[in-house]
């Protein structure tokens, strides 16, 4: 009762995240000082920016007058190549990702398998697409084969990691019930695990198709085929109107994919 008496009438505040006052303030002030110092090192050449504005303006204005026709053959070819790369790499990448994701989930795989699969994921995620593409272009030469392999490789890192995390956070009891019936490991995965992670797998796969398509536009810049090559050529020739046309097509396709994946994901919940 006496304890309560001392508490009544006192202001209540949420306990701070960092208990020690001096440490809290040092970290905060240090961060602000770093931020200021970092901004001061940015060196802007204002006259260069002024010149560049004109080119920027042309580029933006090109969007009001995109030229779909004069390079339509190249655009069509590049687009088909990009779509083939996207579909092929997504299918192959997802097919490889699923077993790796199972291996990388600690509640499904034994420790040695887990470590190997996590290592594969780590390598795939550490190597940026462009770097992989440059390497593969050096090995396989210019063209969509290098792009296809790059995207498949990148898909593995992305999908396996996120799917493995979903498997790890699944409801253990549902899976346990299947195990208790005397199911084999494969049956256990099929009945106890797969239904739980299927919506996530579908959602991630659709998202990855979307990413692969956008990446296929970038990979052309390093010679790995697809619409990116056409886009790069257009920029090199200062044909901003053609470049704008290509970008608009990419935007429309990405938005269509986004719309479709929204519909599909809503249906598989």
């Amino acid at each position, binding site marked *: 009762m006496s304890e309560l008496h001392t508490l009544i009438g006192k202001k209540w505040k949420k306990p701070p995240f960092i208990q020690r006052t001096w440490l809290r303030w040092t970290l905060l002030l240090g961060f602000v000082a770093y931020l200021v110092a970092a901004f001061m090192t940015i060196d802007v050449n204002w006259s260069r920016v002024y010149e560049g504005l004109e080119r920027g303006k042309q580029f933006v204005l090109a969007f009001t007058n995109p030229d779909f026709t004069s390079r339509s053959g190249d655009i069509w070819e590049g687009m088909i190549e990009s779509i083939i790369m996207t579909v092929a790499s997504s299918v192959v990448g997802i097919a490889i990702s699923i077993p790796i994701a199972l291996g990388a989930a600690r509640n499904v795989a034994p420790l040695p398998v887990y470590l190997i699969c996590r290592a594969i994921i780590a390598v795939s995620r550490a190597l940026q697409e462009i770097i992989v593409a440059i390497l593969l272009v050096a090995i396989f030469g210019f063209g969509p084969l290098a792009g296809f392999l790059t995207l498949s490789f990148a898909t593995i890192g992305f999908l396996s990691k996120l799917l493995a995390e979903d498997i790890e956070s699944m409801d253990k*009891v549902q899976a*346990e*019930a299947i195990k208790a*019936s*005397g199911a084999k490991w494969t049956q256990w995965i099929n*009945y106890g695990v797969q239904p739980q992670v*299927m*919506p996530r797998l579908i959602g991630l796969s659709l998202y990855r198709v979307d990413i692969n398509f956008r990446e296929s536009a970038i990979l052309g810049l390093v010679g790995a085929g697809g619409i990116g090559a056409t886009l790069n050529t257009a920029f090199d020739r200062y044909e901003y109107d053609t470049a704008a046309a290509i970008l608009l097509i990419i935007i429309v396709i990405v938005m269509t994919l986004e719309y479709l994946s929204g519909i599909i994901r809503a249906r598989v919940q």
Partner: protein
Amino acid sequence: MLRLDKLVKTYKTGDQALKAVELEVPEGQVLALIGPSGAGKSTLIRCINRLVEPTSGKVYLGDVELTDLSSGALRRERRRMGMIFQEYALVERLTVMENVLSGRLGYVGFWRSFLRRFPQTDVDEAFRLLDRVGLAHMADKRADELSGGQRQRVGICRALIQNPALLLVDEPTASLDPKTSRQIMRLICELCKERGLAAIINIHDVALAQMFVQRVIGLRFGAIEFDGPPEGLTSDVLTTIYGEEDWEATIETVDEDEDDVLEAAV
């Protein structure tokens, strides 16, 4: 039929969940396992089908010793032990039928189960069981569309389609309302009698246990404190199992007929 011999389970954290438990269950006996939360009730039944690996001791199901079995042999023995779970543990995105048929996974090959082409006898049996619990018309509904009581009925069908000799039942009525709880307990006990099954039922509700079972085991800190008929649960016994409390209201036996009249009125 089932015999536990000095069964010990010590968790990695050092908690001793079971301390040399000795227990024998004869053919066809339904027993209730009561005790406070953390007494080791769940661990005990999970050690029997080795969803939890016992630290030491032996479990005999008939003549087979379970704790030394290889994983293949364990799978075959698990078919003889049906399990019913707290919170039902149905696979929510599968249909009712798939959930029931998942009880047959130990008997069919991978491709058959993957393609959902179960033998006709299994499908017929599933329909028979669903009809027995009054859910035959729900076969193609997804499990998460069902109410709690309905889900637990499906859970019961899934356990029974294994054609088990023993039922392991883990808190079947937790999260069910009092009326549904009684219906589920009654159903489990009736089905055990019909099929001559032995059952171990973990249960919180002492009064409910007394109403339906022939034998009660009281567990406290991983050791058996009471083993006897439900009438033997005096307030002294409950105090040893759970600790000091006013037990008179709990052990007052409820008149079943009166209960049915009440149900009819509702």
